[in-house]
């Protein structure tokens, strides 16, 4: 499966001078492969990384990077004069064939050599003062093609007992077709009182950054909050920063498809969606 690599957002924390800075680390090497033997293929492809910004309803080329086999490439949000949560996407290709502007973002190439499992990824990093947290992430091409999708996630990973910690839920969407511009709404509610819900406006092709404390204020509840959408898919990422120690933590939450394994998992998913979304 091919994938885009979103450049994580930077985040300004209310009342704090330093910002959280997003970056990615790319390594030009298949992340999983069969061990080469006899005449099997060795990896020797140079690749090109097209960096695109979604702005004014089109994908605009910010730059192209070249990367030799087994070399690293680090791209920080600091390099670009853009807003903190604008969508920047890195597209990997085997040929330097990027156009300056796309209405429909060009598809990435795969650098896989065989059918080994685990998707191609990058290290998605968030840094604050001298600390950095990372996870291995990607945005699947198939998901970026969805005109209609859904979301079911929660904020229980938030650190609520430590007053020095700020928690952010980042809802990331990439829609490669820039004509999918419907404004979207996320429903938020306490699952124990799901009739009392509120809506939050969010956008496609954007990092929607929700501070969990503010969502709690909206619902007047400090308990777990559910976040759902019946029209658009997002990858949810929970980021915490401890302002006393500067320690960061990032992790994405499992989509509900991960709760089941087997041919009937989508039927069970439908039941779950019907209940909550």
């Amino acid at each position, binding site marked *: 499966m091919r994938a885009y690599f979103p450049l994580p957002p930077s985040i300004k924390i209310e009342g704090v001078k330093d910002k959280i800075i997003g970056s990615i*680390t*790319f*390594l030009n*090497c298949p*992340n*999983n*492969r*069969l*061990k080469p*033997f006899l005449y099997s293929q060795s990896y020797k492809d140079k690749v090109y990384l097209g960096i695109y910004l979604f702005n004014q309803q089109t994908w605009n080329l910010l730059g192209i990077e070249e990367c030799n086999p*087994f070399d*690293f490439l*680090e791209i920080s949000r600091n390099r670009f004069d853009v807003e903190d949560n604008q969508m920047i996407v890195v597209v990997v290709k085997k040929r330097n064939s990027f156009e300056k502007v796309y209405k429909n973002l060009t598809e990435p190439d795969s650098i896989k050599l065989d*059918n*080994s*499992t*685990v998707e191609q*990824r990058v*290290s998605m990093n968030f840094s604050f003062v*001298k*600390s*950095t*947290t*990372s*996870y*291995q992430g990607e945005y699947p091409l198939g998901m970026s093609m969805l005109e209609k999708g859904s979301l079911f996630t*929660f904020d*229980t*990973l938030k*650190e609520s007992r*430590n007053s*020095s910690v700020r928690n952010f839920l980042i809802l990331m969407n990439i829609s490669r077709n820039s004509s999918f511009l419907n404004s979207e709404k996320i429903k938020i509610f306490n*699952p*124990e009182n*799901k009739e009392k819900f509120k809506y939050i406006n969010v956008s496609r092709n954007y990092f929607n950054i929700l501070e969990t404390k503010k969502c709690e204020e909206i619902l007047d509840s400090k308990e*777990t909050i559910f976040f759902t959408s019946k029209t658009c898919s997002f990858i949810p990422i*929970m980021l*915490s920063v*401890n302002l*006393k*120690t*500067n*320690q*960061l*933590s990032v*992790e*994405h*939450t*499992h989509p509900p498809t*991960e*709760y*089941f*394994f*087997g*041919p*009937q998992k989508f*039927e*069970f998913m439908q*039941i779950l969606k019907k209940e*909550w979304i």
Partner: protein
Amino acid sequence: MDMIKKEIKSLLPLKARLFFSYFKNFNHNPYVLKALQNQKSSISDFFIFDRDCHRLYFLAENLRALLLGEKLNVKHNFIFFSSQGDFLEKKTFYSDEFFSKINLGKISNSGKYSSFTHFVESDYDLKDFLNKKQTKISLNLYEQNRGYTIFYPDQESSGAAVHGNFGGINKDLIMTAKSSLLSHIYTPIYKFNKDSMYDLVFNNPTSKKISIKILLNNSSKINNIEINSMGTRYFRVKNYTGSISYESKLPICRALIFKNPSPNLSGNFDVFHS
């Protein structure tokens, strides 16, 4: 051609489709065929426990409550195994929450890193649920126990969370993960830095002993570790910058990486799947 392939596929019974798909990807399939054909159980990821953390929480999902749409009492069972793969102890916690944050406490004789499984038990079976919903779906799937482990490297620090990744351990402790005939090389897309120290922690959810070669790609040094079934081993990386690969017969061999491991007061602790 693709259309014809799809048509032919749709005419085949499910078991035959699974069989062909399995052998097409024989060297890459992380689970045994039998497990894919007989999916009526509950499986767990194989999670890592760190003895030196000040505290370790587990964020458990209550799938039955989520499906029902209302709180429901369940038992969250945790079974702990030593670094050698021996059974250590079982802990049970009761909760009716949709998501519960459970303090796992201390485990004796665990070694620096060890592993555990998580299973949910309830008087309310998924079959009862299907009857209540009056659906025609037969129960032919695994309930996956995934969850998140949250490591606190010190009393004052906040937690670093990591989701369950891989395991396939049946609730009767039958292992559905397998090793492959040919070796794989797995390279996390991560630049290790000499200014930090890392523990690469591997566990073995298969029924056989496995060996893993750890290749520091900017050095000629190769390190080997062997792990018993249900065991856990780690490799410490110091003063090294560059990429690292793991060579093994596991189709998916992804260490859990502890950056600047616990106990750690300095705020630069992190945990992530490689």
